[in-house]
């Protein structure tokens, strides 16, 4: 875009979501199609196409929001574009059939803010989502970006900044919920070795599978993190910052790199920022793919170019971190909250949430749920509100079974606790934890023993191997769980599993090992009957544990409904299905490897699993 075009006003802005989810749904092709059509109709002087970061409602991508008016279009295809442009932009008639209609309802909802998925959300960390082009610093500035930094640099003392953050009640969003103000105070108080520098780190390793809020913030609003770090730098007296981003997030790395360059070009990073004499700069560091590197001491080791292994604390990084110097490390979402707190005041922030947990939390709502995506909600909201009001409930009329929070360190919360108001303490009491905010919803077709086994295989895989309880303990637990899911478990296995879990919890070196038993302990606490069924009846009620499944074909249904369509036989991985077109099919159990392909492909529900 030329300089002149940048200055120009447009009567309509088309906000195309270019978060990772929508990009994989071809949103860039939608963007190109929009631009082409707009040009064709001679509207290129009036209508601007803007690519934004993740809108949050990933399930319905690719997404487009038309402003002004906040008209929400979803599940677009390139084919829809000419009609949409002509109707809405040329003739002023929004296109109903491309709008969102809630499941089970008939009337589409045109305006984004009227849609339940968005209505209950309170946006602080995600305040700019869908509203700015993350690759244009001016658009961030227009949304009152860098106002808080200006205030912190010109009107506030470090003590005052720390006091604001402390009073706001902000706690770390990376998992443990450590009070951010307190951490900053520790870094400020710490004396650096040999008069060296103090450092800040933004932890964007986001290792929890099922969580993608940090990715979304880095992609949609990188300047909010930069501004947060600038404020933090003034507070603790740091001169150099690092943003550590997982290697798996190329788009986040790209957008953050651009944002850093633009901030530097404006002199918002570097020396003598805003002419105040304050110096601070930020470097980007790519992770190299190890879950344990999300742990702060391991992360620091890998920034230094060493093996990403954790070490015992204390000393905490606040006292001795990067290259032995005092280092403040916070999560991406934590940083993104900081500018709003400074701009709007600690009291405002503290008025949101529960007595122990202030503000909002971003959750990624995934798994067996209708409206998958990213949601930001006030602390204290109930699981039921998130899952049913925002998430739209469970697809396919299935029954809710549990929600998993806290990733591999967390646990599964059953339906009896759906009315739990969520904050750091309530989730811990339920045996789980806040973690980074992944919320994986599970329904009747999810096997809880398999889920426990899944997480153990994860932690076993990711254990750095430095301490014995974690390395050997998770392996032994995994062996038992695998046995149970294969129908080879015994009653003794249950007590053994419990004992091992408690032992590892007590003796592991870092958070990874200490929390690894949580998924096992919570599933045993709430779903013991499922373990027992696997052990006693050699059955998996959810039909997930492969070895325990028996696939059969309802021959009558196959012949009458499907006319022996033969699809299963052609897809069978092991030639275990007998029959031909127009004949009833049959499975030879001795050959069946239980891959489940026949069950997946049958369009007539003729394949049964027991």
């Amino acid at each position, binding site marked *: 875009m030329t300089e002149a075009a940048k*200055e*120009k*006003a*447009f*009567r*309509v*802005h088309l*906000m195309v979501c270019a978060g990772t989810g929508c990009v994989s749904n071809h949103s860039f092709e939608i963007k190109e199609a929009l631009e082409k059509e707009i040009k064709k109709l001679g509207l290129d*002087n*009036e209508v601007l196409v803007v690519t934004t970061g993740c809108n949050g409602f990933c399930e319905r991508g690719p997404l487009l929001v038309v*402003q*002004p*008016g*906040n008209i929400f279009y979803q599940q677009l295809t390139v084919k829809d574009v000419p009609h949409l442009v002509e109707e809405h*932009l*040329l*003739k*002023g*008639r*929004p296109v109903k059939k491309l709008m969102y209609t809630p499941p089970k309802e008939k009337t589409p909802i*045109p305006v*984004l*803010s009227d849609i339940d998925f968005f209505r209950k959300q309170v946006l602080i960390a995600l305040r700019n989502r869908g*509203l*700015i082009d993350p690759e244009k610093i*001016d*658009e961030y*500035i*227009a*949304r*009152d*970006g*860098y*106002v808080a930094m*200006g205030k912190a640099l*010109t009107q506030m003392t470090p003590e005052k900044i720390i006091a604001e953050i402390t009073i706001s009640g902000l706690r770390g969003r990376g998992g443990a919920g450590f009070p951010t103000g307190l951490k900053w105070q520790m870094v400020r108080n710490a004396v650096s070795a040999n008069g060296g520098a103090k450092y800040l780190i933004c932890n964007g390793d986001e290792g929890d599978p099922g969580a993608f809020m940090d990715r979304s913030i880095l992609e949609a609003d990188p300047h909010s993190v930069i501004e947060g770090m600038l404020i933090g730098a003034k507070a603790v007296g740091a001169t150099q910052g690092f943003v550590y981003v997982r290697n798996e997030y190329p788009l986040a790395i790209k957008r953050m790199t651009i944002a850093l360059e633009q901030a530097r*070009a*404006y*002199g*918002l990073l*570097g020396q*003598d*920022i*805003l*002419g105040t004499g304050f110096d601070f700069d930020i470097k980007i560091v790519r992770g190299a793919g190890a879950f344990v590197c999300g742990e702060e001491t391991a992360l620091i080791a890998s920034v230094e170019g060493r093996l990403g292994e954790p070490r015992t604390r204390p000393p905490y990084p606040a006292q001795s971190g990067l290259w032995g110097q005092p280092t403040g490390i916070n999560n991406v979402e934590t940083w993104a909250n900081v500018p709003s707190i400074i701009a709007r005041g600690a009291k405002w922030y503290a008025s949101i949430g529960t007595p122990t947990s202030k503000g909002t939390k971003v959750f990624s709502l995934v798994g067996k749920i209708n409206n998958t995506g990213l949601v930001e909600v006030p602390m204290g909201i109930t699981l039921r509100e998130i899952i049913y009001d925002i998430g739209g409930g469970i697809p396919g009329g299935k029954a809710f079974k549990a929600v998993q929070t806290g990733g591999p360190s967390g646990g599964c919360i059953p339906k009896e606790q759906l009315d739990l108001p969520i904050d750091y303490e309530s989730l811990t009491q339920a045996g789980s934890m806040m973690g980074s905010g992944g919320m994986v919803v599970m329904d009747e077709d999810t096997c809880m023993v398999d889920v426990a086994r899944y997480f153990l295989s994860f932690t076993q895989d990711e254990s750095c191997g430095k301490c014995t309880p974690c390395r050997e303990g998770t392996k032994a637990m995994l062996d038992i769980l695998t046995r149970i899911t294969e129908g080879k478990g015994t009653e003794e296995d249950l007590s053994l599993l419990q004992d091992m879990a408690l032992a590892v919890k007590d003796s592991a070196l870092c958070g990874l090992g200490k929390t690894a038993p949580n998924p096992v302990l919570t599933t045993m606490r709430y779903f013991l009957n499922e373990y027992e069924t696997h052990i006693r009846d050699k059955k998996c009620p959810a039909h997930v544990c492969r070895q325990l499944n028996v696939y059969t074909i309802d021959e009558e249904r196959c012949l009458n409904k499907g006319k022996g369509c033969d699809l299963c036989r052609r897809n069978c991985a092991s030639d275990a299905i007998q029959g031909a077109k127009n004949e009833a099919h049959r499975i030879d159990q001795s050959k069946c490897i239980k891959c489940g392909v026949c069950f997946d492909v049958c369009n007539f529900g003729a394949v049964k699993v027991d």
Partner: protein
Amino acid sequence: MPKLTLEELAKIREKTKRLTTIREGGEYRAKVCVHMGTCGIAAGARSIMNALMKELEERALGDVLLTNSGCAGLCSREPMATVEVAGQAPVKYVDLTEKKIKEIFEKHVLGGRIVTEYALGIGSEKTDF
């Protein structure tokens, strides 16, 4: 690029805000629809639209929707536009010029007073939104 001062930062903010306030969502204060059928365009509807866009930009308004519509069926009185202030009946203006639309914008869209001398009819049609 020289380093910014607080004042320069504020200037960038004001300037960009003017261009992006229309993204802020919320209720419309008013909707202005310029009739852009072939006849309307031939009669100068584009310049009416451009004049309106300029108003939006200069005043940094985020709650006025500018749209087009097809031919309004009264080709002899083009360019035409319909102004619909929230909660009031739409008013159709005819034989527009850039000067007239500026006046209408100021008096009707922002001030809520219909400019009767340019108006054709009141409440003759309702738009979708």
